[in-house]
């Protein structure tokens, strides 16, 4: 059988729309998920046992179950429980935001933990009040240290976003599968889809390494 990659070109507009949906979904959930993850990360190091327990259960549960199951649950169960119709996009955003919140909270927690106790000694010796310790010394360092891992969390989210195709959202993967089924040319179409994901994700993973090196160089004391 001869392979004919020009088939793909005929569907470039549809694929572009699908890619746009994938990117849109990823960007929205990066912003929402990182914000959620930041507060969950703080809650996990909080002094309140209640906050710690609730945030731990949330994180462990979302890290301990397949994203596909989470997605199905949000798509099929959440509307029943809430008694409202959720649009596809809304369900996708909720599911992937919760996923992203769980993994980035671990990133923030690890970066908070990596700030040595001697930094706090210095704060005390300079007489800095608690509020200033947190806003001027701890948080800026924690965020800076978190940046490389957050970037690689974003790559993970970008990849996991392909799962929404399984619940009928018209993202890149969904469009690709549709075209592949209709044209009976899976080799050409699916390979191109895989390559599109690759050319976006690969440079990002390289960027992670570069950013990591820069952050480490800056924070090395």
């Amino acid at each position: 059988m001869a392979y004919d990659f020009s088939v793909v070109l005929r569907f470039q507009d549809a694929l572009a729309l699908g890619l746009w949906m994938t990117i849109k979904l990823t960007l929205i959930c990066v912003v929402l998920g990182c914000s959620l993850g930041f507060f969950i990360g703080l809650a996990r190091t909080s002094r309140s046992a209640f906050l710690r327990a609730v945030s731990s259960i949330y994180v462990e549960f979302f890290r301990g179950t397949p994203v596909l199951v989470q997605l199905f649950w949000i798509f099929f169960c959440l509307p029943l429980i809430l008694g409202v119709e959720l649009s596809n996009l809304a369900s996708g955003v909720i599911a992937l935001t919760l996923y992203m919140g769980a993994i980035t909270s671990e990133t923030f927690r690890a970066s908070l933990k990596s700030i040595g106790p001697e930094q706090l000694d210095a704060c005390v010796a300079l007489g800095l009040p608690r509020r200033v310790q947190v806003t001027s010394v701890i948080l800026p360092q924690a965020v800076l240290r978190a940046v490389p891992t957050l970037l690689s969390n974003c790559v993970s989210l970008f990849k996991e976003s392909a799962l929404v195709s399984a619940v009928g959202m018209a993202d890149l993967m969904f469009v690709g599968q549709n075209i592949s089924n209709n044209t009976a040319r899976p080799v050409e179409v699916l390979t191109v889809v895989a390559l599109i994901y690759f050319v976006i994700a690969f440079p990002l993973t390289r960027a992670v390494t570069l950013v990591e090196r820069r952050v480490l160089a800056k924070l090395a004391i």
Partner: protein
Amino acid sequence: MTMSFSAPLVKIKSLHKSYGPHIQVLKGLDIEMKPGERVVVIGPSGGGKSTLLRVMMGLEKIDSGSISFAGKPYISSEAADKKTVIDTEVRRSIGMVFQHYTLFPHLNVIQNLILAPCKVRGENKASATKRAQALLERFGLGAKASAYPAQLSGGQKQRVAIARALMLDPKLMLFDEVTSALDPELVAEVEQVILQLAAQDMPMMIVTHDMWFAKNIASRVIFCAGGVVVEDGPPEQVLGSPKEERTRDFIERVFHIRH
């Protein structure tokens, strides 16, 4: 100073401190320090020297005892509830420099220096920056104002750390093994800065392993071992002809290793 000549600057009374139930680090320490004194604390590792400084800075809880500064008690522990009470207002008169620099790595040199004056005392940024720049010039760091800690050598970092502590106009400086982490060729530049401060009669308490430095800077030397003061006197006596057996042993061993 408003107090009379003989009034102590620091008065440490029967200080006890332990880590957990079995490790007693300070076993009833009594020290009085007069204004203008430069006290060097020497002694074997684990003898409680660094713990003493950390307690004076309010970084460690204590089991019992009290510390006063300029006549005002600022650290005490009531035996009843074992809670360490710290008067942070008084504590602000004390500055401390640590072995591992502890500069804030995300801030440049000037930002490190002006953070506390601006945030604690509400000083405006322009005047704090001006004072910081002057201090850096004095310590030979004028060109490094906008460098980040990672771009500095160990000796430069430690000089910045000293400048940072001085920005709050401390009435007493604590130096906790500030040259121990440095490469040998960088030790002198840091010690020069401390000697400069000594020349201006800054009261200080120094923990160090460098006996040459101890001899040069001390107006008084305390030998601390096993959580108590073993010997206390002028440097010529404690370092030169110690009275106590344990001090003699220690001094001999230290100097033996150096030759």
